[in-house]
């Protein structure tokens, strides 16, 4: 179901938390909402779910949400029913829809299998690990095929492979049933990988909305760019070093991303390695380039701290 948030503002105890949020959400899309801690993401989800009434503005749904087209919010801290087993938690929504015991059991089993929780079917929430709880919460929401699914940090407690699988599952179910999904996440990689569109919420304002690549490569301003990943600002001085000779400093892009740079050992290079961070599939170099700090992501494994290097933009 598509819906529009129009000019919504909200404040807690006089402190504005959301200011004039306007955004349309399209039928069947996966929209990721990213933003720093305390930006108001959870608050926005609560507003969309109807758990809070906006103090200004409105939210228009294409059709009134009801039992067959519900809006479901999966809370950041799950809110499982502590007195129900995992299976009963997951089957809760189906019971409300008066499914027969047998069909319900089947569906729940299938769901639990999907989330690798079969052996926890009879456990109570208190007996689960953090990630298991999170999966139960997601399964409980997905099982009723919501028209709008709101996920607050759905992957925070999941390891990488579960995260990927869950994302993939949400993605495919979502496509199949055309459910509109809004996910709040801190995991930008995941957000880029799975979303149709990204919304960037900074200080209570929705600063930019667009497909991941667009947002990543054409951020509206430096603040947005910075939020999406480390940036190396392009000053006239560094431009000369980084860009191939003859290239003009591009007027629009005033920064360059660490992965768009290449680093090479060069005893006479203008840079000097200050710090090296191993991060698995890449290595993060912090390089002092004529007094300015430059970050480079690279596969280069042979460089060492203190070594002199040359840094250049890669040709894409």
């Amino acid at each position, binding site marked *: 179901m598509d819906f529009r948030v129009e000019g919504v503002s909200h404040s807690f105890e006089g402190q504005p938390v959301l200011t004039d949020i306007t955004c349309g959400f399209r039928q069947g899309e996966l929209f990721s909402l990213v933003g720093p801690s305390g930006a108001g993401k959870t608050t926005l989800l609560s507003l969309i*779910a*109807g*758990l*809070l*009434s906006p103090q200004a503005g409105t939210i228009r749904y294409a059709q*009134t*949400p*009801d*039992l067959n087209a*519900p*809006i479901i919010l999966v809370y950041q801290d799950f809110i499982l029913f502590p007195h129900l087993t995992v299976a009963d938690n997951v089957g809760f929504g189906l019971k409300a829809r008066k499914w027969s015991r047998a069909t319900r059991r089947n569906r729940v089993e299938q769901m639990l299998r999907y989330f690798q929780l079969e052996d926890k079917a009879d456990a109570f929430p208190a007996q689960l690990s953090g990630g298991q709880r999170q999966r139960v919460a997601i399964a409980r929401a997905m099982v009723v095929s919501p028209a709008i699914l709101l996920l607050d940090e759905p992957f925070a407690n999941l390891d990488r492979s579960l995260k990927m699988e869950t994302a993939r599952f949400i993605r495919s179910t979502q496509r199949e049933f055309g459910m509109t999904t809004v996910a709040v996440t801190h995991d930008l990689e995941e957000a880029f990988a799975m979303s149709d569109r990204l919304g960037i919420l900074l200080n209570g304002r929705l600063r930019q909305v667009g497909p991941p690549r667009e947002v990543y490569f054409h951020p509206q301003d430096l603040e947005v760019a910075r939020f999406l990943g480390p940036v190396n600002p392009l000053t006239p001085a560094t431009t000369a070093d980084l860009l191939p000779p003859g290239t003009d400093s591009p007027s629009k892009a005033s920064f360059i991303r660490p992965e768009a740079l290449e680093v090479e050992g060069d005893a006479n290079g203008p840079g000097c390695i200050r710090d090296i961070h191993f991060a698995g599939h890449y290595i993060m170099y912090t390089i002092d380039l004529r007094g300015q700090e430059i970050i480079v992501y690279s596969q280069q494994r042979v460089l060492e701290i203190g070594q002199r290097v040359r840094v250049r933009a890669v040709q894409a």
Partner: protein
Amino acid sequence: MRPLAKQNRWYHILFFLGVVVLFCSPVVVLVLSSIGPHWQFPHLWPQEVSWEPLNTLWNQRLPLLRHLSSSIGYSLATVATTLLMCLTPAATLAHSHFRGKTLLEGLLLTPALVPPMTYAMGLHVAFLHTGLADTFAGVVLVLSLFSFPYMLRPLVAGFEQMGTSYGQCARNLGASRLRTALEIELPLLLPSILAGGSVVFLVAFSEYFLVFLIGGGSVESFTGFLVPLLQSSNRALASACTLLFLLVPLMLFAASEGVVAAYWRKRGAPI
């Protein structure tokens, strides 16, 4: 599905008025019957007003105040005693499992639920031998002995709800057992303590037979004043006295409730 945040105001106001009428009407009736001793069918309120009962109360104000303060004294002391008695046992009952726990929890309820005569005589003899009879301490002790279940139950429920993690966390941060209890667990248990304390206070404040048997009249009590009136047919004076009786716990409750509610409201909890 109607938006969850929208709440039906009229329904709330109607319900609220219903609650007020339901729970206040007895008090209104008591007020009316205290000034209208001869209030009869089919009048909705007394046709003639008599200040006689209130006059009598006023004439008795000094002894009344004395009895009242004695009652408040031993009732508060009982609340404190039961709280001390119940804290660790309630934590243990809430957080550990052993054979026969349910049975024990059940048996621990009995003192409040059987007629006090069941153990009054035996206790009196025991108190006579230990010199507790006819003393303030004796009264507090006997009241605690039979009203503690009202403190224990809410406390156990409160401990169960609180779980062990807050205590663990505080201990982990280096707090002593005492500090953990005082600064972490007690505030979190406050709603339960308030609930239990209210009932214990009321039970102690309303008890008649035990206070007289053990206190022997040397510990004064307001019920000693009130109960004979209630048992007599002087309804007007009984009503007036009941209203007076009502006043003390009411003020106490309003105060404690206000303090606790403010405490938790400030902390963003849904009280």
